[in-house]
Each structure stands twice: as C-alpha cells, then as structure tokens.
C-alpha cells in the first residue's frame, strides 16, 4: 500500500505481509513528508518558528501555534494579556471543529461514503471563512504572535461566530446520523481494531484514541493551560475500544467544543490584544535561556514542545512530541490478523496528518 495511497491520508506506505486476505504483519514506512522543520527553527528567530508550526498539523494550525507559544512564552517570560487567552481558546476550539470535520469527511471517503464529505467540507468552509475574516488567510493562519495575537476581535466577528454556532449543531447531527445509523458503517467499524487501555498507555497513545479506550486523559483538564480551568465542559470517553468508539468520541468532542465556544464568546474581557513587551520591532530581539516543556491538547492528542534556549535570539533546540506519530506506532499492533479491508478503517480512525508525523 502506498506511499501514494488513493485515500486522503497523505503519504503513508504500509508494507503488508498477507496470508490470503488476512494481514499477518504491517510495517509502516514514514518519512515521505519529512520537511526538516526542527532544523530550520534553529536557524530563525523565535517569532519566525511559528510558520513551521502552522504547517505541522495543517488542518489544525491554531492548536499547533498555541502549543508552540505555550513553550515560547514560558521560555521568554512573556505573559499574554487576559483577553488574548480567551481569544486563543475560541480560535483553538474553532480549529478543533474544522480538524474533526476534515477527519470525518476523509473517514467517510475511506469507508465508501461520499455524501458526508460534501456536507462536512461545507461546514468547514464556513469556519475557514470566519478565519479569513479574522486573520486574513484560510488555512495556515499565522494569527498568533508571541505575547498576543495579530489582529483584534470585534463585535462583528463575535456576532458571525455566534451565527455560525447557531446553525452548526443541527447540520452536524444530521450528518452524524448518516454515519451512526447506517447499517454498513456500523458493521464495518464495530469490533474492529480493539485497543486495550494498558496497551494504549504503553504505546504512548493520546487524544481521542486513548479516550475511546476508556482513559479520561485530556490536557485541558489534567494540566489546564490558557483559561480552560474557567470553562465548564466534559471529557467524553467510551469503553467500546474499537473504531466505532473513536468515531463517537470525536463527534462528542465536537459537541463539547461548541459548548466551550458558547461560554467563551460571552466571557471575552476587554483589554489590549498584545503584550507591549513583544510587539513590532521588539519581536526579533527576544532572548531566552534554559529549557521548557509545554503540553497542549491538539485534536489528535497531547502535543508537546520541548524548547531549549541558549541566551541568543534563536532557539537552540526544538523538539516536538507529535501525537499522530505515537498514534501511528500502534498500527502494527492493531492490524494483526485483520482483513485487508479493515486496515483502511483502522488507519482512518487514527486520524493521521503527515505534516505532523514526519515534521
């Protein structure tokens, strides 16, 4: 299989050892999108590294930016203002919705359902229009800067997001029922790819995959960053442990995101939208020393950034814990003795984005 697999997961090559239709052993070959982002970050200023994070998990650029900024702001000792924290939560949750929508569309395509793809992409298109309105670009937004955001929110934008949120749950439930009520979908996903919680922890799996196995691990709850401790939301888990459970957990996460967004939009305080210590011509003169590790919850799981500074204006070493990389490493375990058609369902349920796996 691969590396140019017909499905939409990017460039994964799987070496399969088959016995008839049954898969005996799988060896994933990755690295077809290795873009040396970690090396280039060492050559650039702290503020410039942000654009490479946008392009890591390219369907959830905001979450990646927050992950980097959590580390960079700790290292450079710059605290963002209160308003910025709320704005970042709103953007992160919007992008989490967009990311799960892309996953749902692609997962439907994998299992041979063409129609939900168009519905989900239409909803995603609305979110991207909001992004264009707010930050000026669609996908790789480069919206946040160290100690703030690039452009401020205003009433018109908040009104538009609220308008979007009003119609979104209905559309989502409609498309969700296409998934979950469908006989063929359930028979293709139920009982496939069982993942026990102990195994998942040992392999370092995080995110919806771990929660679908029954472990309620969510960085937003366990080690709150930004203002997630002031928000009221649930961590969805399922004890189904299979592909169907992962699908359900992701959809429930989308509902929780809507809940967070509704709360956060009402609570955004007034104030400056950047820290004056890190603005304009100052932003290439920031120096940092020491090492920090920051973890955030990206749509795929726990996203960690280990950042080492040596007192100059450039990072000394930057290493990324990418959730999809760890989640992919469990594929050989999951796909032992399954049918080759189920392989597609399993690899689809991992939610792979190769910009992040290979970096």
């Amino acid at each position, binding site marked *: 299989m691969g590396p140019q697999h017909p499905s939409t997961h990017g460039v994964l090559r799987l070496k399969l050892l088959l016995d008839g239709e049954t898969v005996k052993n799988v060896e994933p070959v*990755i*690295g077809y999108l*290795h873009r*040396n982002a*970690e*090396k280039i970050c060492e050559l650039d200023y702290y503020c410039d590294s942000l654009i490479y994070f946008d392009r890591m998990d390219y369907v959830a650029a905001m979450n990646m930016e927050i992950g980097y900024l959590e580390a960079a702001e*700790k*290292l450079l000792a710059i605290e963002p203002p209160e308003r910025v924290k709320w704005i970042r939560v709103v953007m992160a949750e919007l992008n989490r919705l967009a990311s799960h929508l892309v996953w749902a569309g692609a997962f439907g395509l994998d299992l041979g359902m063409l129609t939900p793809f168009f519905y989900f992409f239409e909803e995603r298109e609305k979110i991207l229009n909001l992004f264009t309105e707010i930050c000026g670009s669609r996908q790789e937004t480069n919206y946040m800067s160290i100690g703030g955001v690039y452009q401020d929110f205003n009433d018109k934008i908040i009104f538009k997001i609220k308008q979007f949120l009003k119609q979104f749950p209905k559309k989502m439930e409609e498309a969700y029922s296409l998934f979950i009520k469908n006989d063929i979908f359930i028979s293709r996903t139920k009982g496939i790819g069982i993942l026990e919680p*102990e*195994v998942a*922890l*040992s*392999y*370092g799996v995080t995110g919806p995959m771990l929660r679908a196995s029954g*472990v309620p*691990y969510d*960085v937003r709850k*366990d*080690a709150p960053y930004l203002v997630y401790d002031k928000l009221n939301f649930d961590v969805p888990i399922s004890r189904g442990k299979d592909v169907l459970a992962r699908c359900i957990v992701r959809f429930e996460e989308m509902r929780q995101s809507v809940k967070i967004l509704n709360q956060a939009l009402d609570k955004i305080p007034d104030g400056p939208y950047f820290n004056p210590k890190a603005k304009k011509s100052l932003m290439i003169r920031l120096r940092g020393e*020491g*090492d*920090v*590790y*920051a*973890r955030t919850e990206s749509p795929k799981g*726990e996203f*960690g950034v*280990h950042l*080492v500074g040596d007192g100059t204006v450039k990072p*000394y*070493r930057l*290493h990324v*814990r990418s959730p999809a*990389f*760890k989640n992919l*490493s469990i594929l050989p375990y999951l796909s032992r003795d399954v049918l080759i058609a189920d392989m597609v369902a399993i690899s689809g349920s991992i939610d792979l984005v190769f910009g992040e796996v*290979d*970096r």
Partner: protein
Amino acid sequence: MPYEVKEEKGKDGRKVFLIQKENFLELMTDLRKQGYDHLSLITAVDFRDRIELVYHLQKSESNFELLTVRTVTYDSTIDSVSSIWESANWDEREQYDMMGVVFKGHPNLKRILLPEGWVGYPLRKDYDLSKNQYVNMDDEGNDRVSFDPGDGW
C-alpha cells in the same frame, strides 16, 4: 538506593531528575514500577561535546503528572528503554535518525524518517547543510542515496 538521583525544579515548575548514565536503566525500571506508565517524549540535545537526553514521563493514576529525567552521554550511546515502554521504540529510532544516538539493546535500530544510507545526522550542530544529497529509487522500491544527482534529477 543503588543509584544517585539529583532532584531539581525546572524553569516552569517541573520535577526534574538528573541521573548518571551508568544507573540509567535501573532508575527507569524503578520508575515504571512506581506507576509512570506513559513515556511521552525522548529528546536529544546536542551540546557539541556531549549529548543530553531528556525523557518526559507521565503517571496515569495521578492526573498524568509530569516527570522529566535528564542524563548526559559523552560517547552518544545509552541503554534502550524500549523493553519497558513500547512507545520508546519509535522515539529512539527517531533520535538515532536525527542525532545519531545509539541505543543499546534496541530491537530494530534503523532510520525512520530519512532513507537508509543518508550520510550524517542532520540535527547535530556540525551537520553540513551546504552539501546536497539526492535519493534515487531502484526497481524494488529501495532508496539509494548519493551526493551527485543521478539520471532522475
């Protein structure tokens, strides 16, 4: 205790263990028994004369509390922990690929992101960025790396 652990606070309030390379495997086995069942990340940092290895561990019982273990190697070899945590398998392969750290006792230590036969370890500080390497493919789908562009380029 048979080994020495120096404990300190990180810049952001993390718990950090500093440990000698010789007692490394014993400490890691011990930590696994204490309930640190989630190995989050292995990072290697190149300081030109030495390579520092940073392990981020998490405990699933107490809200995934973070613990950082740091150790230093001067000859870029270290014991592998892939028998303790399964997730170390790919992490160590990545660090071998990027930094050239040899993990002793690893079941399948080969390059993971770059093609086999790539010269040098790119994330080291002394890696020469000015030399271009080219990859060609033979009929079986295996990569061949060379410094001069072949017929495909």
